């Protein structure tokens, strides 16, 4: 008996160790570190409550806004009231990403990246109250201020075979000058599906590793001060074969004339459809050298592709600005998309089940409309309206065999169904194909989703490499998000920040159904002086300059007639360089992808 048990026990221990090792190796592995600290009541009472009571209570005790503080009442002493206030306020803190907490962003001055806030009470980043607030949301206590990760850039790009070095040594402890006591912990949070690379020294202050395959890797760092571990910060590394292209002079000739017209069109289409923006001239030239087919294989694996899809869905659901998703799952989503390749249904489900969805589309008719229009692309059905109204009135509703008692449960039920998955899939396929082709492709996509892991990724690559996609003659309107991003890349030559995108989409949304607001944005950018444009007298070869601008903005060469007309406008007393650029980026053709 004892003899037969011993080998089994040894085997079990070995297996257990292997499983533990494997679990610690893989993408998304979570070490056994304690979670980041949550807000502390004593710190609140000592440091934050006086400020809250001076600035916030007038509105928020009277029922203003989402933060409801308890109004004064008999028998409620100061200590008890502050405890109740703390409990309410703590709900607006996100310990996993304190810097994204609603409490913090609501009172941060919009000029420093804060959210719009009725009533004001803003703090600027250089004010002491700002540091106190950031300490509070980061989980400070009267005896300890938590450490903070600093990684510098949030993404960069290397070539396959390059070794990566990530440096966490600029991380700091809020209440200590020396950094000697800081502990580090790195996690490989996401990696390409066929990668098996593992991190070697997770506890080093500088991490080195060599990606084993092309794609996007996401590495996360937490630091500890011996008492608590900080919230994590992550960095995305894109590993791709790219060619360095010499950057042309700002405002000068970009070099796109060397790229063959049809290939430029195909490269632009891939960028606009997958990344939601046009390629910069150096990117287009580099991708032309590598080949369009290779680009179609790798573009979906870029971290930017995940971010672009995530933003597309959040904008469509209205989950931007004050309604930005708050759950850990939603925050991880942009990173998961290029590595784990979740299905469209999974992507949308995470965002529909995020608490912000119900804040943005409150119970009742508003929710029914959101379910009908946003999830299924049709007006809400009478059954949906009835369900929404009954749930809002606190009644339960039978839906098939399931008794629904809350809106959240209803959303869970809806997003678990095949209809939802198919509708999300159709939306995603329609991003790439004209609607007729997309309809025909959906059944195949559905089968791909149901097949083994990797089939969905292969399906997308097949679509992007198909002659039907590459030789598509159909123009499609850019959505607002793609148009705004295009203006930033084409005119300001940079990506927009999250805040800029939220504000501009809000502005554009004020005037629904027309691209005129976007034309106004273009004019604002052009007249800002931040668009690198040459003086007219510096343009030595006007036709060449005009051809270059056509290639930059429209991805094609101008016709003879266009060259003549634009040339005349360039030299016209009321025309000039700015007007030519304005005409191109506000043209109906630019509004298409």
């Amino acid at each position, binding site marked *: 008996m004892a003899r037969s048990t011993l080998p089994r026990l040894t085997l079990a221990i070995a297996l257990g160790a292997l499983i533990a090792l494997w679990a610690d190796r893989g993408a998304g592995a979570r070490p056994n570190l304690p979670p980041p600290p949550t807000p502390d009541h004593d710190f609140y009472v000592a440091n934050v409550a006086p400020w809250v009571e001076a600035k916030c209570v007038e509105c928020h005790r009277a029922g203003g806004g989402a933060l409801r503080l308890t109004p004064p009442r008999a028998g409620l002493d100061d200590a008890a009231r502050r405890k109740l206030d703390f409990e309410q306020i703590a709900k607006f803190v996100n310990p996993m990403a304190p810097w994204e907490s609603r409490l913090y962003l609501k009172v941060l001055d919009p*000029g420093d990246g804060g959210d719009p806030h009725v009533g004001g009470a803003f703090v600027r980043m250089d004010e002491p109250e700002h540091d106190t607030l950031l300490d509070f949301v980061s989980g400070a206590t009267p005896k300890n201020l938590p450490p903070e990760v600093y990684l510098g850039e949030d993404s960069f790009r290397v070539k396959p075979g390059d070794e990566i070095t990530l440096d966490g040594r600029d991380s700091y402890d809020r209440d200590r000058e020396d950094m000697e006591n800081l502990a580090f912990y790195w996690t490989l949070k996401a990696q390409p599906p066929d990668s098996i690379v593992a991190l070697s020294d997770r506890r080093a202050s500088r991490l080195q590793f060599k990606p084993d395959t092309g794609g996007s890797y996401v590495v996360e760092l937490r630091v500890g001060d011996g008492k608590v571990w900080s919230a994590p910060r992550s960095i995305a590394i894109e590993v791709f074969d790219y060619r360095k292209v010499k950057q042309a002079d700002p405002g000068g000739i970009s070099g796109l004339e060397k790229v063959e017209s049809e290939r430029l069109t195909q490269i632009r289409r891939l960028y606009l459809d997958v990344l939601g923006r046009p390629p910069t001239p150096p990117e287009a030239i580099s991708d032309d050298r590598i080949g369009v087919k290779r680009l179609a294989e790798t573009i979906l694996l870029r971290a930017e592709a995940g971010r672009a899809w995530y933003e597309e869905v959040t904008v469509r659901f209205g989950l931007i600005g004050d309604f930005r998703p708050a759950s850990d799952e939603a925050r991880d989503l942009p990173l998961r998309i290029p590595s784990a390749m979740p299905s469209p249904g999974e992507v949308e489900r995470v965002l529909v089940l995020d608490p912000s969805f119900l804040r943005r589309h409150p119970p009742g008719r508003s929710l029914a409309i959101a379910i009908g229009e946003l999830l299924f692309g049709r007006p809400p059905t009478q059954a949906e309206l009835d369900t929404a109204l009954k749930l809002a009135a606190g009644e339960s509703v039978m839906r098939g065999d399931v008794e629904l008692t809350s809106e959240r449960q209803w959303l869970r039920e809806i997003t678990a169904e095949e209809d939802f998955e198919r509708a999300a899939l159709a939306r995603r396929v329609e991003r790439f194909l*004209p609607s007729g082709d997309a309809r025909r492709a959906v059944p195949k996509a559905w089968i791909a989703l149901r097949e083994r892991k990797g089939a969905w990724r292969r399906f997308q690559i097949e679509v992007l490499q198909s002659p039907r996609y590459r030789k598509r003659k159909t123009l499609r309107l850019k959505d607002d998000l793609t148009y705004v991003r295009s203006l930033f890349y084409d005119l300001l030559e940079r990506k927009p920040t999250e805040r800029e995108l939220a504000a501009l989409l809000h502005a554009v949304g004020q005037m629904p159904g027309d691209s005129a*607001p976007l034309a106004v944005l273009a004019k604002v950018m*052009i007249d800002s002086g*931040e668009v690198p444009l040459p003086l007219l007298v510096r343009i030595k070869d006007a036709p060449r300059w005009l051809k270059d601008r056509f290639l930059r903005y429209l991805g094609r060469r101008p016709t003879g007639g266009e060259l003549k007309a*634009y040339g005349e406008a360039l030299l016209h007393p009321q025309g000039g360089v700015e*007007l*030519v650029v304005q005409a191109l980026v506000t043209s109906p053709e630019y509004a298409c992808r």
Partner: protein
Amino acid sequence: MTRLRRRLLCCTCLALALSAVPAGNALVQAKETGPARPTHVVLVVLGGGVRARDMLDAKKMPKLAAMAEAGRVIDEIRAEAANGYEGVARLLTGAAAPVAGPETHPDRPTLMEYVRVGRNLPAEKVWYVSFEGEDQLRLAYSTHPAFGAGVGPAVATGMGAFGEPLKSFLDRLGRPDPQPKEAWTLLRGLRARSRGAVSSYLPEAGVPAGLPRSERMERALLEEINRRSLLVRGPAPRDERAWRAAKTVLQVHRPILTVIRLGEAEQAQKSEAQYERVLWANDAGLGRLRGWIAADRELKDRTLVVVVSELGRDATPNERGGLDQADDSEDHRELALVAFGPGFKAKKGRVKRTRRIEDVCATLGILLGVPTPHAEGEAWTPYLREAD
């Protein structure tokens, strides 16, 4: 039917008909021309507290007086609200009882929500333009579960229909240069060429061939930004910004319902003279509004403009020379409404019958052809023309 029964029936009908005619309504009616129902309604709330007698005083508000002369005046409208917020809330929701406080949305649906639901309209066809920042927008839609944010109006604040969300962007990048007329001509020509290039492709279903861009809208938005709406000066700068935003909205969208909420008359609290300057400025705005409507082919003759206050002011000035809202006098509690355009029966003279401010919601609901089931006010059907 016997003769007696026939007589009784005739008398009953006559009595019913007479009872339906409000007191004072038996005066000679002017000739009613044009459509019986408006296709568009602009409701101007002279917020901040304006007395009926000031509204109807041709020396203080001459343009409004001219509109009243050509349209219809309904006075002795009773206002029971405790404050301006509640007054507007009662006006827009038709609630006869106090509604949820100023820090949150009203709990009853607003006229804007009724119109969007009842007519199944997209947001850009129903607008709420307010004189102040986003905190004033709480009156735009309710928390009522059967209505709410999803069917609320499009909103614009005093920062402009387009300008407010763009504020931080404009602060950083600056405002665009005005575009001369010749530059527009050049742009139009160049864009037309691009349109030709686009139409050589097979357009995707749903994408209009040639993708017409609304130059009218573009010009209106640029004008709004160029006007430097944040730098407006004068006796009522915030109201002035609201007028400008309203102009953009009307020119661009031609909404079915536009509610323009002004509020600078609250300056009366400090000075009666300042209050009169605000009224003068708002009167100029009303004159411009009349001009914009008359100049627009779609809005002209089909738009009803309703001007009303939400609460009055004290009959006599306080010791500082201002006008409070405290004396419960007729000046404080009784309002006037001016209706100009199709919908109301044209009639000289004023209707002498006490009405309530909350009746406005139900009345406009009838004119716009939508039910207002949660509004407690009584529609003024005797004053409305029969629908065609």
